[in-house]
């Protein structure tokens, strides 16, 4: 029964799921909830549920329980969506669960950050099945593996919560959790328009995504899905630029895996300078236009 089921909520999650399953070292199948898979990514079987959108957790989970019964490990990329659904699945399966795995020691031992990244816990699972959500940064995606043989599957949805409305923000920019460059802004950005012009402008020039601190989200300067940190999104770009961000442990917990961290802050004693690879003590309203001009000149 040592077999992994990768649950991919959309096609973009298939490759990172395959990366984790490969690191786990067991044969694996993929269940794709929405959309279509282009290649099998090394999976033995690829099940295609073909739903238009991911249903609410309570109506989707019972159908996943039935399918998951044959597996020792059921895994998905960490996201708010997977935390919502996979933890309910773990509850229904009476499974052990590991949230936000960053490394695998064996199929029963994982590493995960706790206390806003102040410690890395080595966690042993004591029962089977095991449900895992993982941060993709630590698990390289396997090479393309040719055509998938897709097996359509019907997920019987149960009666559950009713989705009344849905609003998506963002649009146009790369996904924060996948982006190669992330530019984030904090509390001192005056208002939503200034945030968009200053932070969004630099991000667009670098082809990057936009992030924010909780303070910026709370004061309505940035929308909630942009929040980066312990309780927001975890990012791991090549370049993270933090402008007007003090460097709270809660924020830093979300950016530690970034390759290069740049801090722009007018307070030379701001804690973020302890973490930044490159720190610039400056007013962000002067520094960002100057950076944009320097980037233009360099072309």
């Amino acid at each position: 029964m040592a077999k992994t089921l990768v649950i991919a909520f959309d096609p973009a999650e298939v490759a990172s799921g395959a990366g984790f399953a490969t690191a786990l070292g067991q044969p694996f199948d993929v269940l794709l909830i929405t959309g279509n898979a282009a290649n099998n990514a090394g999976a033995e079987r690829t099940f295609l549920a073909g739903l238009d959108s991911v249903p609410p957790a309570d109506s989707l989970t019972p159908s996943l329980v039935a399918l998951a019964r044959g597996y020792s490990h059921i895994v998905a990329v960490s996201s708010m969506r997977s935390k919502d659904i996979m933890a309910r699945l773990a509850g229904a399966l009476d499974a052990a669960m590991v949230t936000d795995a960053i490394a695998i020691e064996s199929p029963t031992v994982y590493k995960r950050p706790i206390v806003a990244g102040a410690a890395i816990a080595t966690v042993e699972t004591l029962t089977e099945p095991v449900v895992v959500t993982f941060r993709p940064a630590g698990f390289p995606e396997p090479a393309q593996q040719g055509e998938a043989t897709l097996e359509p599957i019907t997920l019987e949805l149960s009666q559950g919560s009713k989705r009344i409305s849905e609003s998506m923000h963002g649009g146009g920019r790369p996904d924060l959790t996948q982006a190669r460059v992330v530019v984030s802004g904090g509390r001192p950005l005056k208002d939503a328009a200034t945030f968009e012009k200053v932070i969004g402008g630099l991000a667009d020039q670098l082809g990057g995504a936009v992030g924010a601190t909780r303070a910026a989200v709370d004061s309505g300067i940035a929308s909630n899905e942009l929040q980066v940190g312990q309780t927001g999104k975890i990012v791991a770009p090549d370049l993270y630029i933090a402008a007007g961000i003090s460097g709270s442990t809660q924020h830093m917990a979300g950016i530690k895996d970034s390759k290069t961290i740049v801090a722009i802050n007018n307070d030379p004693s701001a804690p973020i300078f302890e973490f930044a690879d490159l720190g610039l003590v400056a007013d962000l309203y002067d520094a960002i236009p100057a950076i944009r001009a320097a980037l233009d000149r360099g072309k």
Partner: protein
Amino acid sequence: MKILVPVKRVLDPFAKVRPLPDGSGMDTAGVKFEMNPFDEIAIEEAVRQRDQHPEIEIVAVSIGLPEAEDQLRKALAMGADKAILIESTETFDPPSIADELAALARAEQPDIILMGKQATDDDSNQVGQMLAAKLGWPQATFASKIVIVAGSVQVTRETDTGDEVLECALPAVVTVDLRLNEPRYIALPGIIKARSKPLDRRAPTTSPRPRTRVRRLDPPPARAPGRKVASVDELVGALRERGAI
């Protein structure tokens, strides 16, 4: 209508903490314990809902050491009507907490279990969803707005791409996110006054059946020290050198 709010005692989320040198736990010397900030938001929300629906009764519950009384007293001071302390020195992992809360919910029959989306110590984000599954109740996680209507609750919840509104028939489990509200400040006299409110101590009705065990804690890998740059040109130059742009 009854709202049950589980409350966890956690290390002060704003303290600088590190693991003990032998990796057996966190070094708690000199660190205060607080109510998990998300649970505080859940209590605050329950109290605000009661302002609109006076028939609501708010029951706060904590599972753990006797010291969790402090956090329950705070919940009472914020406005909870009564508190239950399920005392145990054993380790309850998230599924075991969900089992115990499910047993309590069957006895107490709340209409809504309103709880934090995660605890800031173990950052697991599991208990609410596991509990909802065990009870077979609808769930709405990461709430940023809650409206109770006849027989159901409308929850605006945060998603990876924005937000959505779910309608859940009651009883239901709702977990709360940071934007839902800003908890009221309770000064010490308020907490002392809450001593007259009922706090019921009991033993767990389930014995914990841990499905995971923490073997050890290590400090996070240190980042190589960085440096300050003197100008924008030096910054852009350094970024080009690193191939970051």
